[in-house]
């Protein structure tokens, strides 16, 4: 097996006084679909910020093979990031959002960039929306536009923060399909945060399950196996959509 693409060593995370995660270590393999799971507010987006170099970790190291620690210096990025709320540039159209990185980091002529933008938007089901302002999109459309933007430069690694939440079931399914196709067909490594159980069981190969109370990774591995065998109540309830002491 080749060396892992992302290596996280003894990572600690937090905001201000709050510690969310202590001494967490895990690896993300090339070409896999890897999920960060856990209850709302447990620090998944915070972990993603550390993995992408947006916030330096309190302790520990993140290393991306071939790049070292993610630093986000000015230059062609080696991975794409989709933010939980989309974070589309409000002063540009959807098409310009997707085109920006292409214009900055490739020497493609304008017509070629336009073609790629159209293709990326088609991929996420937003064909014909290129001329719209982000404020004219629905919540789910914004997410998909953000995914198209993250995919613009065809990075080998992509981080997605809740790509399918807020999507209708059909779009969510199509997005799952897209992620799996990209991963299997192009060897794209996908790191995603999601709460969508169907999507987790359908496409995620390995996951880490974060827990805020113990500030640690509570469980890790194949989500289907965890669902069926993990004895920890927090993990069990998550995967089976139940809560302690109540049945709907």
């Amino acid at each position, binding site marked *: 097996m080749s060396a892992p693409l992302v290596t996280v060593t003894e990572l600690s995370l937090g905001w201000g006084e709050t510690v969310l995660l202590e001494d967490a270590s895990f690896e993300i393999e090339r070409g896999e679909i890897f999920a960060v799971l856990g209850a709302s507010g447990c620090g998944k987006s915070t972990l993603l910020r550390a993995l992408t170099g*947006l916030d330096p970790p309190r302790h520990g190291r993140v290393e991306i093979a071939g790049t070292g620690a993610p630093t986000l210096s*000015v*230059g062609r990025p080696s991975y794409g990031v989709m933010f939980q709320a989309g974070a589309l540039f*409000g002063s540009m159209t959807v098409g310009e959002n997707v085109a920006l990185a292409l214009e*900055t980091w490739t020497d493609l002529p304008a017509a070629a960039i336009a073609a790629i933008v159209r293709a990326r938007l088609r991929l996420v089901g937003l064909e014909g929306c290129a001329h719209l302002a982000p404020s004219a999109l629905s919540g789910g459309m914004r997410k998909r536009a953000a995914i198209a*933007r993250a995919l613009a430069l065809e990075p080998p690694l992509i981080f997605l923060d809740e790509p399918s939440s807020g999507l209708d079931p059909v779009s969510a399914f199509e997005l799952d399909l897209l992620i799996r196709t990209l991963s299997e067909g192009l060897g794209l490594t996908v790191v995603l945060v999601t709460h969508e159980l169907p999507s987790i069981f359908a496409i995620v190969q390995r996951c880490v399950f974060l827990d805020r109370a113990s500030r640690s990774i509570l469980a890790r591995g194949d989500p289907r196996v965890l669902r069926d065998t993990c004895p920890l109540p927090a993990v069990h309830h998550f995967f089976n959509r139940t809560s302690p002491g109540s049945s709907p």
Partner: protein
Amino acid sequence: MSSASTDFAIPDAAAPAFHLAPRETEPGRWAVRVEGRLSFDAGRALWQALLAVVPTPPPTALTFDLSGVEAVDGGSMALLVQTRWSLQATGVECAFAGATGTTARLLSLYGGDVSPAAEVAVAAPGFLAGVGARTLERLDEVRLLLDFVGRMVRALGGVLRHPGTANVRAIAPLLARTGADALPIVVLVTFLIGFVMGFQSAVQLEQFGADIYVADLVGLSITRELGPLMTAIIVSGRSGAAFAAELGTMSVSEEIDALRTLGIGPLRFLVFPRVLALVVALPLLTLFGDLMGLFGGLVVGVVNLDLSITAYLTQSLRALDVWDVFQGLIKAVVFGLSIGLIACAQGLATTGGAEGVGRRTTTAVVTSLFALILIDAAFTVTFHMAGL
């Protein structure tokens, strides 16, 4: 749908009929029977009744008997539960009894059978600590700005090496927004300043028969001081505030972060064109401002002092030389630079949602006004000492 089939019946607001009946069962142990319909619409009466029903001195135990409750809603249940929690906090054994059906379900939903989660106490800082914290905040502002200037210089180096990263396309629209769009207000304000100055000085100078020197006074003060300063104040209120709010909103909606993940530096992409636009626009606006200020003085001279236009203009030209205008333009360049840097630094430092944007925008305008006055004073003293 009949009301019987709803889970939580909403009591009839017109009949807020409830009754609390306290009774001492044993010495120090009380039972309060709650009867009737508890409705949130009568919440104030319920709250006061709950406060009043607790005997003084506080009992060792108090039980709310809910068996007589006919209907209850969420709001009144919250008040009941809070009463229990407050009593428990003062050491009274307090419990609910006799709840059935909907009342029991609501009771457990609102946590009537558990202890409250600990509230995080946020201590208000003492006076001295407050003063200290404010002072540190101010120092932090200075550090923020210096750090920003440092990073901006580095980014400028980057722009020179890779001009493609600088977002040159944004400069023209920004120039229109900061320069052309500001022209009407700049023209109006500077004209009025020149007019008012001319008017005030005319009253004084007339007494000495020195009417014609209005032209000197207005001309010199406008070109050296007031033209650049008033223009800069207008621009900082317009564009400085706009830049801070714009970049601040981008910060809180993670757009800046998104930019960074695309490998694009916010300083080169957003700050550089904005600062450059101000550095170019402000001297140009100042030139217009100077002209309009002189025109304002001229109007006073001609209308009030019966000077001829030629006489006024000749006197103005005699009083002014190119350096007077030029030193104003030098100031304008530095003003533009500082407004742009301060506004963008504040914008990029924004955290904390819409309120944070408002706070940073305010700070940006206040700080840049302060900086303008300071810079102006420094220039005036320097030019004077250098004998210029």
